[in-house]
Structures are given as C-alpha cells and as structure tokens.
C-alpha cells in the first residue's frame, strides 16, 4: 500500500510546519543571513578599501620602449601623482609599487600579457597632446587592479598639474594627459562569481539542511515519537520522502535567504560589480542558474544527510557523523577555486565535485552538454541511492532496538535469501553502475589506435563486466535468488517468436523516431563526426559479420536485457505498478544509450526509449526476460548487418541513408511485423506469474 498523494502532501506539510516553527531552524534561516552578511560586508569593505589603496601591492608594467617606461616612472615617482594625504595615512604610506619590463625573447607585449607574466601594458604617446593607453587582460584581477591604480595616479597627476597652473595663474590646456583604458581577451564578468559561488552553494545548502535532517530523523527517536510513527500504517518510504521534502525546502530557503542577504548587502555596499563585473546589467540569468544549482545541491545534500542521520539514535551521534561530512564537502569546494580542474572525464561522475565544477562552468558560461547531463544524472542517481538507504535505515530494527546501530550493520550481508533485490539495493547498483560505465566508455573511446575488431571485443567484455558483473555481485551480496531476480523463467515458444518478429520490424519505427528526433533538434553529431563515422564504417565492413553480431548484437542483447528487464525490472516491479516499472526502466535504458563514450548521442534517446518501452511491456506480459533478449539481439543484429552490407543493398536499389525517411513499403512491412508480434504477445501470453513480494 502506498500512501495516497493527498496524505503524502499532508505528511510533507506536517514536517515543514514542525521544522519551520522550531526556533533553531529560524535562527539558521533568518538570523544568520541577517547578521552574518552585513558583518562580512563591512569586513570585505575594509579589506577592499585597503586593497584599493595599495597595501604594498606590486605590479609589473610592460612597455614597448625604455623612453615610454622612463616617462611613466617619472610621473609615478613625482609628488603630484601621489594620492591625497588622508588616503596615504589610511594605508600607512604603503603605495603600490611598479616594475617595468619591455618585450623579450621575441614575444610581443600582448603575448606576454596573455601569459600573465605582466599585469598591464602601458602605451604612451609622448608628443603633445600626450595620451596613455593602459591595457589589461580581461579576466585577470591583478591586471584590473593595476589598471585602476594607474588610472587614479595619472588622474591625481593631471589634477596636480591643474592646481599648479591655477596657482601660477596660467590657463592649463585640459586634459594634460589623455588616459584610456582597454581590455584584451575575455571580458571580466563572472570570474569571481563562478569561483566563489560553488563554495558558497556547498556551505549554504549544508548549513540549511543539517539541522532539519538531524531533527527529523535522530530527533524522532530522541523525543520518543519514532515508535508511534513506525507503528502507523504508512510506508516508511513515504514518511522519509516527506522528511526529505522538508529538508530540501529548508535547505533551499536557507540558501535563498543567504543569497538574498548576500546580494542585497553587496548591492547596497556597491560591491556587486566585484562579483558580476563592471558595467554589467543586473544578473537575472545568473540568478536563475544559481537557483537551479541550489535545487541540485539541496537535493543531493539532503539525501546524503538523511542517510547519515537515519543511522543515529541521538542528536549527538548524528552531529558526530555530520562533522566529517562537512569537512569532506569543503574540499571539492576549494578544488573548484583552482583554475586547472575542469568538468571532464572522470570528474563528471565524482560525487559533489561534479556539481561544484558544473556550477563553476555554468556560471562562467563554459558548460557543455555531455558533462552537464552526466553530472546531473549521476547526482540524481547518488541522491536516490542515499534516500533509499535512508528509508531502509530509518526506523529499522537496529534503530528501534537502539543497540547495534552501525554502518557495518546496514551494509551487512543479509542472512536470509530474498527473491528479488530491494529498491535501495537496485538504486545503489545503478548509482555504482552509471559512473563505472561512463568511466569505462571514456577510457575505451581513447584507445583509437587499436583495430576496430579488437575494440569491439574489448567493448563487449567491458559491457559484460560492468552491466553483467556489478548486478551479479549485488545479487550475490544481497542473497537474491537469480531466477526471480533476473526473471529467467522460460516463456511460451510463441512469445519468443513474437520477440523475433518485433526485432525484425521495430528498427523501422526506431529509424523514423531517429529522423523525427533530428527534426526536433536532437542532433549532436556535427559534420566532422559524421565523417568520422563514415570512415569507421568503411573499416567496419572489413571485419567478419560473426564478430559484429557477437559483439554488437548478442552481447548487449543478453547483458542489457538481464540488467534492465531482469535485475532492475524485478526490483522496481516489487514496489511499483507495471506501467511505472516499464516507464522508468525504459527511460533509464534510453539515458544509458545517450551517455556513451565521449559523445552525447541525443538522437538515440527517442528510438532507444521506445525500444525500452516495448521491451518492458513484453517483459511484463511474458514475465520473462527471454523474449526481450530475442527481440534485442534480432533488432541489433539486423541493423548491424544492414550497416555492414550497405553498399550491396544500395546496388540493389535499397537506400539506407541515416538522415532520410524510409520508403513507405518498408514502414508498412515493419509495422505488419510489429503488429503481429504485439498481437501474439497480447493474446498468447499470460500475466501475473511474475514474483511480487511487497514488504517493508
């Protein structure tokens, strides 16, 4: 029995009401932002004032020739260019110092500036009317400071000239020195924002989530409400989900309050341009981006915190668990401040670090689709696994007994066998499988020097190890019965035949969906990639067809079906309706096929998800994984053979270009096969013989 939607809403409402009335939450939510940021702002103001007034900074100025350098040096050392006495006193006479360099090693000044060996270039026109151009690198804070200080000092110098002229009753020719400032390279607008915000996001969401996470889990036990709650007929998952929503909401509200206060403080203090860049419009888009990132961070942290606090029996114990987590979480936050670390390859699946780097890239406008989707999807997987683990632990035997609670106890291998995997075990497997698969695909994409035949074999072995090995290990570890877990019971012969028909026909629909997807804009292959694929196809036709069938049809057909329509399907079906199980397994099937290797194959999403829906439906109707295997192997094998013998087919007048619609006769033929397959399965198979054992 799952909690009705209305009741789930009221559960969330109660958790939120309870949390938001708690004065400790209010302190975190309101007092912190109200007090901390104005104080921080004052400190920052003081710091910036000191920084702007010198505080012994040293800058390196590049000149085209010594004459220009000497001219500026004379001005900067003259008393007229010095700041007013009050400012000099405020910084204890520590004014900025400058070194002067010219072009060297055959490099131009612009190149040296780009390499950040100098802070600014100054180009002087010595003939009257004199002018100075101060050039800085767009995203270099030192350069910007040097530029600002030089402009100020030259302005003081101009003012001193005016004052001198007035005192001697001369009429000065204004302006004496024309000061121009320029920027080269990137525009300075989000550097500081993009560097600081990820760290701030971590701090704010954790700050907001910690207290409600502890209070709503360990607090239940401490105040003696746990037993009464567990004695009520509401699934533990629903209770925990309501708590999760409450924690996410409070984390979000806290982070929004913090950000609001921070921005208002910076705005009113005139410091906002430090974050968003000078003369930039109000950063509405970045606000929206930050909000999206906040949801991601809050969702992730709330799930992880709940998983940890669900172990605990008291506030103290929960706090002891959370302090190391907070320290560990700050490390990737600090890493994100390092310029060399980027969201690519393995880093896209490292929990927390991936979303921190993603924040930096989104805010600096450098985010690309594949790592973004990989980071978001892997984070959702991690959060789901953490939440399901929390649901398993919360109010469990151990917590209720209050004697043998430990991480080891939660991860202990069960003593009794179970017919199908639990949802938390499946989510954990998925959370491990996804990054492993992504990393392996990435590694395999790099070994391009090997022949295509070898690469195909390695790919197949990797698929068996990852998709086959990890779930198999999970099955063994959880003592799940393989027959019911992988749903390998033998179906009727007609179901296998129907799988064959569908396998032969479905590619036509898949092809049309592929073309439709491209029409919708699901196109990630540019011309160069299509050319690469065409070159690959030429090589592809040189290898024996049996190898192609074995590695691209039989292996994925068996391994993927055993995972998606076996392991995952049985775990989902034990808790969800058939339609939800089919839909979720199909979506995951689609997503896994999009995120492959180093490319984001968006155009594969629609056809693969459609195939996943059909495969899921068959798996449900026949209560077996075998018809799906037949369909999958046939479908892949048929497509691979068509690709392999494309030239021969074209000689016979059968065109199979990827970007065009199929002839209507082909679609009609495919549809006939599909309809026959569906009809056989629908009327020829029974439902209800699959194993369902819904228990808390």
């Amino acid at each position: 029995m799952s909690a009705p939607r209305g009741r789930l809403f009221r559960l969330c409402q109660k958790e939120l009401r309870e949390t938001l009335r708690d004065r400790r939450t209010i302190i975190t939510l309101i007092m912190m932002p109200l007090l901390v940021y104005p104080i921080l702002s004052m400190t920052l103001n003081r710091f910036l004032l000191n920084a702007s007034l010198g505080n012994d900074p040293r800058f390196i100025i590049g000149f085209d020739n010594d004459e220009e350098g000497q001219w500026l040096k004379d001005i900067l050392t003259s008393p007229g260019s010095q700041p007013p006495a009050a400012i000099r006193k405020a910084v204890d006479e520590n004014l900025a110092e400058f070194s002067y360099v010219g072009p060297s090693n055959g490099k131009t000044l612009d190149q040296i500036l780009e390499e950040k060996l100098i802070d600014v270039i100054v180009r002087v026109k010595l003939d009257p009317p004199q002018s100075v151009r101060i050039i800085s690198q767009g995203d270099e804070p030192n350069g910007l400071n040097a530029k600002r200080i030089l402009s100020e000092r030259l302005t003081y110098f101009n003012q001193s000239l005016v004052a001198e002229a007035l005192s001697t009753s001369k009429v000065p020719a204004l302006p004496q020195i024309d000061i121009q400032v320029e920027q080269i390279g990137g525009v300075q607008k989000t550097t500081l924002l993009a560097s600081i915000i990820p760290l701030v996001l971590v701090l704010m969401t954790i700050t907001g989530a910690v207290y409600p996470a502890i209070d709503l889990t360990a607090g239940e036990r401490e105040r003696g409400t746990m037993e009464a709650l567990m004695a009520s007929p509401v699934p533990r998952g629903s209770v925990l989900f309501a708590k999760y929503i409450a924690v996410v909401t409070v984390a979000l509200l806290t982070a929004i309050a913090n950000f609001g206060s921070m921005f208002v403080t910076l705005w009113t203090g005139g410091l906002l341009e430090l974050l968003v860049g000078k003369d930039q419009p109000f950063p509405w888009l970045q606000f929206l981006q930050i909000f999206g990132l906040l949801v991601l961070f809050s969702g992730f942290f709330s799930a992880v915190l709940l998983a940890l606090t669900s172990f605990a029996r008291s506030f103290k114990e929960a706090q002891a668990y959370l302090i190391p987590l907070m320290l560990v979480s700050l490390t990737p936050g600090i890493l994100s401040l390092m310029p060399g670390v980027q969201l690519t390859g393995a880093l896209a699946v490292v929990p927390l670090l991936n979303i921190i780097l993603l924040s930096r890239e989104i805010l600096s406008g450098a985010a690309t689709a594949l790592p973004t989707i990989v980071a978001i999807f892997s984070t959702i997987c991690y959060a789901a696994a953490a939440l399901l683990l929390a649901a398993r632990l919360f109010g469990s035997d151990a917590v209720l007994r209050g004697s043998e609670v430990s991480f080891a106890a939660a991860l202990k291998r069960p003593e009794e066998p179970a017919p199908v995997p639990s949802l938390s075990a499946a989510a954990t497997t998925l959370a491990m499988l996804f990054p492993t698969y992504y990393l392996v695909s990435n590694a395999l994409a790099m070994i391009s020097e090997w022949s295509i035949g070898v690469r195909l074999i390695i790919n197949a072995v990797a698929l068996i190890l990852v998709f086959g090995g990890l779930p198999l290990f999970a099955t063994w570890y959880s003592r799940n019965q393989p027959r019911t877990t992988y749903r390998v019971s033998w179906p009727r012969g007609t179901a296998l035949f129907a799988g064959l028909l569908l396998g032969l026909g479905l590619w036509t629909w898949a092809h049309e969906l592929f073309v439709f997807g491209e029409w919708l804009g699901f196109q990630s292959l540019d011309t160069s990639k299509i050319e690469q694929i065409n070159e690959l196809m030429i090589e592809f036709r040189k290898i024996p067809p049996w190898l192609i069938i074995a590695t691209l049809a039989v292996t994925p057909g068996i391994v993927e079906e055993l995972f998606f329509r076996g392991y995952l399907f049985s775990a989902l079906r034990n808790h969800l309706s058939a339609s939800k199980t089919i839909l979720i397994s199909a979506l995951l099937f689609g997503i896994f096929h999009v995120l492959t290797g180093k490319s984001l194959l968006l155009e594969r999403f629609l056809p693969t998800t459609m195939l996943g829906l059909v495969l899921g439906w068959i798996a449900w109707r026949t209560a077996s994984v075998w018809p799906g295997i037949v369909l999958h192997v046939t479908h892949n094998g048929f497509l691979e053979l068509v690709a392999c013998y494309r030239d021969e087919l074209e000689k016979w007048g059968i065109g199979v270009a990827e970007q065009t619609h199929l002839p209507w006769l082909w679609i009609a033929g495919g549809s006939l096969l599909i309809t026959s397959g569906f009809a056989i399965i629908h009327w020829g198979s029974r439902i209800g013989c699959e194993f369902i054992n819904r228990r808390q």
Partner: protein
Amino acid sequence: MLEVVALSKWFTVPHGRIHAVDRISLSVQPGEVYGLMGPNGAGKTTTLRMILGLLVPDDGYAEVDGFRTTVDPEKVKSKLGFVSSNDGVYPWLTVREMLLFFADLYAVEPELAKQRLEQLAQLMGIAELLDRRAGALSTGQRQRVTLVRGLIHDPPAMLLDEPTRGLDIVGTQTIFRYIGHLRDLGKAVIVCTHRLDEAERLCDRFGLLHRGHLHYEGSLAALREQTGRERLAEIFVDLMDTSDAPAIGPQRII
C-alpha cells in the same frame, strides 16, 4: 481478534545468538484484557514490537483480525493502537495538530477525525490543551495526549507497553480508567507490565514471561490452581527462583 503463534525472535551478538522471544503463543478476544508480565528483559516489548510489525519475527507469526504482520503489515498496523511509556510528542505542533496528524496517518477522514478528537479530548480531560504547543505540556498531560493518540483511529485491538511507568498515583488511576474504557468498548487489549498488583485488578488473563519463555498462561484462578499460590507476585518469585540463571540479565545464549 489477536493471535500469536510460536512467535520467536533472536538477536545476533558476538558470542552467539540471544533468544529474546522463544515460541510464544497466545490469543486475545474482543473485550478481553491480557496481561503480559515479566521482569525487565523478559521479552515483553520485543513481543509487542513483533505484533506491531516493528520487528520482523525470526519464526512464528502474529495475526490481528485475520491479517498477518509479515504479510500485510500496514493492514495490521491500521488495526492496532499502541501506547508506550516512552511516547513523546512533537514539541512544535499544537496538541490538535499532532493528534490530527496521527489520525491522518491512519487514514481517518478529516471530519471524522475532528469529531473523534473532540470526544476523546472530553473523555481524557485534554479539551483545554488542544491548542497548546505539545512541547509545553506536563508529564501527566503528555500521557493523556498519548492515550488519546492510541485511540484516535478507533482500532479493534490495543497494545500498551508499561503504560504506568514513571507516573504518579493520579496518572496511574487515569491509565486504569482508560483500560476499563477499552474493555467497555470491546477492544482486545494486551498490557505489558511488571506491576503485578495492578495486573491482578486489571486483566482478565495473564501470561508470565521469563527470559523469552511463556511459563504460565491463563486466568488468575487457573494460575492459582496450577501453582498453588494465591498471588501473582508469589507465582512470579517461584518462577524466578526455579530458574538457573539470574532473573534479570542477559538471556540464554545459544
């Protein structure tokens, strides 16, 4: 109404397994109050938690109104009311909000829940407390709120775990009246207690639990006949004296 058959639970410890409950069987009919008695650590609470579905039994089963705890845990939970001495409150909710929240957990229609809350609040004398914050209640007031919570969904069976522990004489009297009320309502009730004097006055039948074993079961008259003793306390002392191991302490390790 309430059937327990060969219910067993053991816990794994470093040197073996502890048999916390060892093949206990009992049944309670509507309108009957069953006293499950024993010293601390006898297995009373573990038995109740298995009936409630909070602990999964290692052997045997418990049934409430025909539903097994291991097969239909949520059905069983919906048919049970549970009151324990450890029951706490949500300090930041009002009493009304908290009790209606529990009614909602048991899927009681909102209007019906409000009506029932008013009736029970009058009965247990908490009507004036309904809009007070639960965290601000005294121990006695909390206890009465907890008693109302156990009945808010009008369950056919009630489990009471040491309901008088830590209460003064007024609080204890309230519990007695409450149990009498439950009997009048025709509920099947199991009361766990080690207060034998109270049990004699309250319960229709008794089960004497010691180190996970149900040693005696029956009405007071039947127990007197079996043991030749007049008072429950005497029967109990005999039981503990004849035992090999210390009466209060770790259970048998197998």
